[in-house]
């Protein structure tokens, strides 16, 4: 019998044209001709953050994911070129407000390295405590989002409950729950009382106790393991090739942590372990961060017990910040050149490059490369070949936070 060819006209759905897809028209047509299916996930979707993922699926298997970022691009790099050096401090922490101390730290360290400011020991320890508190907070935040993405609402509530303690600790130390803007060139804005430090010390134990509940109900939950294990695997080679950063890189077996590779602040004076895993799957990425939380708690405790007395801001700048803020910091001018610092923010390597022309008191160019932006490529690659339902699980396991990536 003769085979009859049937030409079925394939028309991509019309609404795709009105949704401003950044992908070319041919791609859409090609998808429909090959009997694939385009699904737009986000930005108004219960399982997406502030971004859109264009997912091409064949059956239930993801063929390719094209990211459409920029829904939270707030023109940070341009704004930083138009502000005084000191005015950029609140600005640079806005990409990830739950991780504000680490973002501040990166920017401030770039200024300090340019101006050769020696930071007093006490300020270094205070900064380390803040950075680690923010790291715990961010990891808990990501764990909560991961939990809600795979449908576990209790797993969402517990970390946010614990985060309240972190917020309270930050509020007691700095005066703000999230955006502390507390780290300034040369030290911190205010000294922290002994009473507050004791409170934070006790809180670390309270957090640990509550984390045990969280571990039983979510971390070791069989459904969590089923959803995350062997899902979105990035091998060591792939992770390196796509430039994945932070805990996600360590989950693939690379021992890279800026705190060890290029130590800063008080990280050399406390003992802690670098957490790694070999599997490189979603569950390893999650577990690495869970273990990092307990390492961070240890760092905070050590910092508080061995907190040195002394100044909280360098004598190269001023004696007392209160009242002098504008006079002492308003007119910082960096020597000409380019200054790059690497910081281990909660989600990975954070890079600040400041280019100064040596005359202006505004930076010539500030380049902010956030961890989210760096591991986006690896995130997209790890989705290939997985099921549609895994999209959210992998998304959560990466803790992708679009405001951080888009800046």
């Amino acid at each position, binding site marked *: 019998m003769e085979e009859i060819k049937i030409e079925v006209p394939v028309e991509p759905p019309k609404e795709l044209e009105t949704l401003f897809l950044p992908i070319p028209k041919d791609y859409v047509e090609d998808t429909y001709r090959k009997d694939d299916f385009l699904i737009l996930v986000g930005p108004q979707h219960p*399982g997406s953050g502030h971004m859109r993922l264009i997912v091409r699926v064949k059956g239930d298997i993801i063929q390719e994911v094209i990211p459409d970022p920029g829904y939270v691009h707030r023109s940070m790099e341009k704004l930083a070129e138009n502000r005084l050096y000191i005015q950029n401090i609140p600005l640079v922490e806005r990409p990830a407000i739950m991780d504000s101390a680490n973002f501040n730290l990166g920017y401030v360290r770039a200024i300090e390295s340019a101006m050769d400011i020696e930071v007093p020991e006490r300020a270094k320890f205070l900064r380390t405590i803040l950075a680690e508190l923010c790291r715990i907070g961010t990891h808990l935040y990501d764990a909560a989002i991961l939990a809600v993405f795979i449908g*576990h609402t209790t797993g969402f*509530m517990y970390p946010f409950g614990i985060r309240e303690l972190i917020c309270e600790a930050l509020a007691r130390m700095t005066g703000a729950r999230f955006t502390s803007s507390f780290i300034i060139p040369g030290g911190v804005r205010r000294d922290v009382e002994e009473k507050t430090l004791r409170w934070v010390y006790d809180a670390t134990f309270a957090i640990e106790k509550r984390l045990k509940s969280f571990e039983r109900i979510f971390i070791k939950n069989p459904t*969590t393991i*089923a959803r995350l294990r062997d899902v979105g695997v990035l091998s060591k080679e792939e992770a390196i090739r796509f430039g994945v950063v932070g805990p996600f890189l360590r989950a693939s077996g690379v021992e890279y942590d800026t705190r060890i590779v290029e130590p800063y602040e008080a990280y050399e004076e406390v003992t802690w372990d670098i957490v790694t895993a070999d599997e490189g799957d979603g569950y390893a990425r999650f577990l690495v961060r869970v273990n990092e939380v307990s390492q961070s708690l240890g760092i905070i405790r050590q910092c508080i017990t061995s907190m040195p007395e002394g100044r909280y801001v360098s004598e190269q700048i001023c004696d007392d910040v209160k009242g002098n803020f504008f006079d002492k910091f308003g007119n910082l001018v960096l020597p000409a050149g380019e200054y790059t610092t690497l910081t281990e923010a909660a989600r990975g390597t954070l890079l600040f490059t400041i280019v100064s022309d040596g005359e202006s008191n505004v930076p010539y160019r500030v380049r902010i490369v956030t961890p989210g932006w760096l591991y986006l490529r690896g995130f997209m690659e790890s989705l290939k070949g997985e099921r*549609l339902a895994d999209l959210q699980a992998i998304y959560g396991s990466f803790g992708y936070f679009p405001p951080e990536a888009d800046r």
Partner: protein
Amino acid sequence: MIDEILATLMNVFRSNSMQIPLIQPIVDYLMQIPLINILVALILWRPFFAVVIMPGLAVLLLYLLYIVWFERKLTARIQWRVGPLEVARPIRGAIQALADGLRYFFQEAIVHRDAHRPYFVQLPILAFIPILLPIAFIPAGNAVGIKTPYAIQLIVAFLALIPITIIAIGWASNNRFAFVGSVREALMYVAYEIPFIIAVISMIYLYGSGDPYVAVEKQSLVPGAILNPIAFLVFLITMLMATSRLPFEIPEADQEIAFGPFVEYSGMLFGLVMVLAYEKLYIMTLLFVILFLGGWNGFYFEPLGDLNAPLCLFIKTVVVISIIAIVRSMYARYRIDQTLRYSFSWLIAFSMVALGIGVVLGWIL
């Protein structure tokens, strides 16, 4: 002429009426008033009482208000928080579901441009038919809608109709996520229906009949859950799957496919489709209680008379559902392929074992 019809009806109603000593004086008083008496008689007419009052529609509505609130409250309790409260503080926010329901009722119901308009609107209402039909066959002591020895089989058959309406809802929505949700629903449908039916058949073998009365009577000493614990387990798990509750909330999966088939529904229509799963849960739990927990066997208070059995059945059902509600705060969602694998391997194997136990025990008893 009308008098005659009324008298005949009255006779029919009175001949098969619920005997409740507690409210007998009130009934007697109302019987003297013309026209009201026919209404009272109708309500007390056993088939009508079973279908419309208890365990039928009236308590179903009550149950809906209760379970939505209770589930949220229990979940909140486990999650270190309070749950609905300020709407009515003295009763711990118990009318929260009413507020939500009223809000849905008065909200605009949007039928979007791409939907298949007639089906989109009709299907949520049509979906009630397979929900209501099994109620007619579920007996509670003397109160029964349609008495038949094949009641259990019929209930199972009608339950199997519900997913079809959900798939149709997804089709009529004409949305990507609704489409994916419908496909998932269809896959799940096959996956849970087989072990579910086998588990029920095993119990039918065990009791030797599809008649709920026989089943309940045989459980007067030992409940079915102990007689056939594996069928009990399989039934429980398939019930979670059939009513798409966590960890098997796969067709609706709001974080993955945004409520799947129901993504485009709004206002009153969404209110209707949202309670669909709860209603299915209610019916399945009624069946569950009859098959495994001794049905209406339980307390007997003289003044309640015929009301004892429906009340007992209803209380057992609500208690079971309240315990099941805890699962929501315990588990994450499994993936579709995992669920299918579990149900086509483990669940079917278990249900076969249950069938074996049922056959053997049925032969011994």
